[in-house]
């Protein structure tokens, strides 16, 4: 089943803003004060996606590995910025180590998918590398943010217990074994829940997109299965890696808690 794709006209895209106008009217009526955010959000959606469209168009047509790599790095950098906005820790400078760990794990995972699973040739073909890389980054970014937040909250909440363990001879990893496990688990839960509910509660975005583009649902399903498993793996790998580094920098070399 390969149907012709329907190209939505810009006029029809603009008509969708009627829904936003209706939402704005509701906001005015209910005094929600969301009108300004709605307006800015809508304009940003148009501008950001238009820009993305042009950038992707250029990157897809250039097929230059350096440009693909730069765009991918840019995406990772912004994901790390978003994480640092969500984690309130100020005393421990975790941004650079977390960025480095994200960078390493995403590159390894994306290369694995490109060369072993999908077997794209050349491996950096942007039409595969960038969207799949984006999905990996977007999902595990949330997991890393949740894990790091849980980690730092745990250190503060259990300061006395951790200090006692250190005083009794424990190393940082011995004194925070449970904190570490809890932090990894809390980041993993959303992706594991997604594994449970996929296809029953929702049709995933990637599959929907492929089907709208006329791809056979059975092919789309294979992609979706790969993506779902990949997201769980990449989430686990990147958050464990990032947490390892964060744990290391949460203590001094003399096993003193920095918080």
């Amino acid at each position, binding site marked *: 089943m390969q149907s012709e794709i329907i190209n939505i006209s810009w006029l029809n895209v603009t008509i969708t803003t009627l829904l936003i106008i209706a939402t704005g009217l509701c906001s005015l009526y209910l005094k929600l004060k969301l009108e300004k955010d709605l307006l800015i959000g809508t304009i940003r959606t148009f501008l950001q996606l238009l820009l993305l469209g042009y950038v992707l168009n250029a990157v897809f047509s250039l097929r230059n590995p350096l440009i693909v790599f730069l765009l991918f790095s840019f995406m990772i950098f912004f994901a790390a910025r978003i994480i640092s906005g969500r984690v309130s820790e100020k005393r421990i400078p975790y941004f650079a180590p977390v960025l480095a760990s994200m960078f390493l794990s995403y590159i390894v995972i994306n290369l694995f998918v490109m060369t072993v699973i999908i077997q794209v040739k050349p491996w950096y073909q942007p039409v595969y590398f960038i969207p799949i890389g984006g999905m990996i980054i977007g999902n595990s970014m949330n997991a890393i943010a949740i894990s790091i937040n849980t980690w730092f909250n745990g250190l503060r909440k259990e300061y006395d217990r951790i200090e006692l363990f250190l005083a009794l001879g424990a190393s940082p990893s011995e004194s925070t074994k449970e904190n570490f496990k809890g932090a990894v688990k809390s980041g993993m839960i959303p992706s594991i829940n997604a594994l449970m509910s996929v296809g029953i509660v929702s049709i995933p975005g990637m599959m929907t997109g492929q089907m709208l583009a006329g791809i056979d649902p059975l092919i789309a399903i294979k992609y979706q299965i790969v993506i779902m498993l990949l997201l769980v793996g990449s989430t686990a790998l990147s958050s464990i890696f990032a947490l390892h580094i964060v744990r290391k920098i949460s203590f001094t070399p*003399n096993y003193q808690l920095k918080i």
Partner: protein
Amino acid sequence: MSSSLLKIQNISFSYPDGKPVFERIDLDIKEGTLSIISGESGTGKSTFLKLFNRFHDLTNGKILFHERELREYQISEIRRSILYLPQLPHMIEGCVEDNLSFPFTFQAQKDKKYSPVKAREWLDYFQLGVSLSHEASKLSVGQRQRIALIRALLLEPEVLLLDEPCSALDSRNRRLIEQKIESLVKSGAVTVIMATHGAVNFSESVCAFFQLEDGQLKAMQSHSGQGA
């Protein structure tokens, strides 16, 4: 004459914000002695104790342990030899035995062996009235404080840093602990540095008393407490 175990030479310590806590303190702690550090709340008694197990790093000066600078030791060596017992008696989930035995699982303590027989002896001595299988969450604060002390004693450190170890105890139990500490010190089993702001009852023959005030440590003849 016992030999010098800890030599404190001209030490100063300030918090990271620059606020000085101690300035130019000298002290010589002999093996098998009991040093009582008293002072009002907030004078830095806990901070002073934490300099010895390197929870805090000195701003100036040095501490020698067995004539060797503390900084030259591996941190795990220090923590297994110099044990700090915090004032808050934290209990982990599980029974009394879990709470007494868990430190023996740490890499730094791996060559020591947990002995349930010794643990029972300590429980009996401190008249806790609980068995090793008693649920730790059901212990009173006073019982927890004594369990925490037993936990430290079972590890048999060379130096025990006690931070208000009797703060939650009645006078009878306080006396029991003081007698045990005194006898352990007299036998040479351990050297104790104890911070307190309350009255203590040790014989002056084994005890050296110090007052921590305005960042200075002053030797005193005896100790009668600071109004517990």
